[in-house]
């Protein structure tokens, strides 16, 4: 029952997901609209609970048991609760019951997002360029014909797509574009067919209850 009932639900809702693509009848379309707007949307909002709950549990646990770097868990929790309070009570546009301005200094949720989250997220990914340079230097070796081909294609594209490529030769950008349009498409399309067929097989396995990993452990 604890595993069978969810599997049956998965199958039923899977069929309900497929039918609207095939049957244009208004009853089917309206039912589909109801399912999406009035059920799935709300479930998506509640699904945040899972991720958030796990995050908070991990960090409370770290603090409680004084695990490594437990002090930073306080930073995370305080930031989370502060931001949530400012957002929930200050409103999306800073017009809620909680005041989010002291003189000219504003601290509404959008300001926090633009000045805290954006620079932090952007800088984390900016680090990747350095790691990529170091990794490319250390590990990209033309050990075989295939690897040499890969490197040559990479060099042609890296130079061809930039204005420097056009300065070296007007044919270089066109050649780089041709590499993207023809051999790249051929290779990627072959891979994409495999992925598409694999996804289709996995989807059918999930609906038919053959693939049950989403049920998790336990009974």
């Amino acid at each position: 029952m604890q595993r069978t009932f969810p599997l049956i639900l998965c199958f039923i809702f899977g069929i309900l997901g497929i039918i609207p693509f095939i049957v244009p009848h208004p009853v089917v379309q309206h039912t589909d609209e109801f399912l999406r707007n009035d059920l799935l949307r709300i479930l998506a909002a509640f699904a945040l609970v899972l991720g958030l709950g796990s995050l908070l549990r991990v960090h409370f646990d770290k603090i409680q048991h004084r695990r490594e770097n437990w002090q930073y868990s306080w930073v995370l929790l305080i930031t989370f609760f502060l931001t949530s309070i400012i957002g929930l009570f200050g409103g999306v546009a800073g017009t809620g019951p909680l005041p989010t301005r002291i003189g000219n200094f504003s601290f509404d949720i959008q300001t926090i997002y633009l000045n805290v989250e954006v620079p932090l997220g952007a800088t984390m990914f900016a680090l990747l360029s350095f790691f990529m340079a170091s990794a490319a230097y250390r590990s990209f070796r033309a050990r075989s014909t295939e690897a040499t081909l890969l490197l040559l294609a990479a060099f042609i594209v890296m130079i061809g797509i930039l204005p420097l490529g056009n300065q070296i030769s007007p044919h270089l950008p066109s050649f780089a574009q041709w590499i993207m349009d023809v051999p790249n498409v051929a290779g990627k399309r072959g891979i994409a067919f495999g992925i598409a067929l694999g996804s289709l097989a996995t989807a059918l396995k999930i609906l038919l209850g053959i693939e049950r990993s989403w049920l998790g452990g336990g009974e």
Partner: protein
Amino acid sequence: MKIVDLMLKIDRRIIYLILAIVVILPLIIPSAQHVRVMAPVQKLYTAVDTIHPDKALMIDFDYDPQTQPELEPMALAILRHAFKKKIKILGLSLYVQPLGLAKAALDQVTGEINALAKTNSDSVIYGRDYVFLGWQPPPIVPILGMGESITNVYKKDFYGNQTDTLPLMKQIKNYNNVELLISISSGDPPLWWVSYAQNRFGLRVGVGCTAVSASDYYPYLQTGQFSGLMVGMKGAAEYEELVEKDLNIHKRRKASEALPSLTYAHLVMIVFIIIGNIGYFIKRRQK
């Protein structure tokens, strides 16, 4: 230490320093670089340029802080293009993180236009010329739902206004009134738009994507499922070039400013890879 060992063991911090220098210097000492516009970007530009006056352009702002430098210049260029041509715009995001950046981009461009506007018809007015619908999860809800009715999916817009009271939403009911959707995204959303909205409702889809996704999206461009494709900062620079040349809009071209730094960074990467390979082959021969 032999030269070969030196070639193979350059400290990573030296690599980081050299990369930082070649990126910073061209930013401090700028030099104008004009870009050659390639076919995929031209296709997208033409698709936007030929939008019928009665129809809208829908923009899916799906870039987060991690991909903002590549994708925000695209968004700004498209908004400038569309507003100059008096094309109606509907903005939305499929995820929560891009919302703030989407609002910032819309505010920036509408602010630029309204600062110079002399009459009401020159201005860009919220509700009449554009609407920011906001975000409704999960992505499949708006993608499929807007095929029937946009206001049913987005009952309120990002600012909390009832969407069915906005003048623009009285004209734009569903995808039949949207000529083109441009997905400016760092992940899979363009494929979702094609798989769901285009397949079921025939919506035309254009894409602005990060360079990481580029090689995976070219097959969809070739089949015509994408009506155009802008790739990374270079794609944004090409669109900026078109907007400046064709529409005489002279605003800051962030993507174009970055091209010299990009060029030198690429050259440095290539040099390091070549050095590593030379050292590797010499060492292999010695063995």
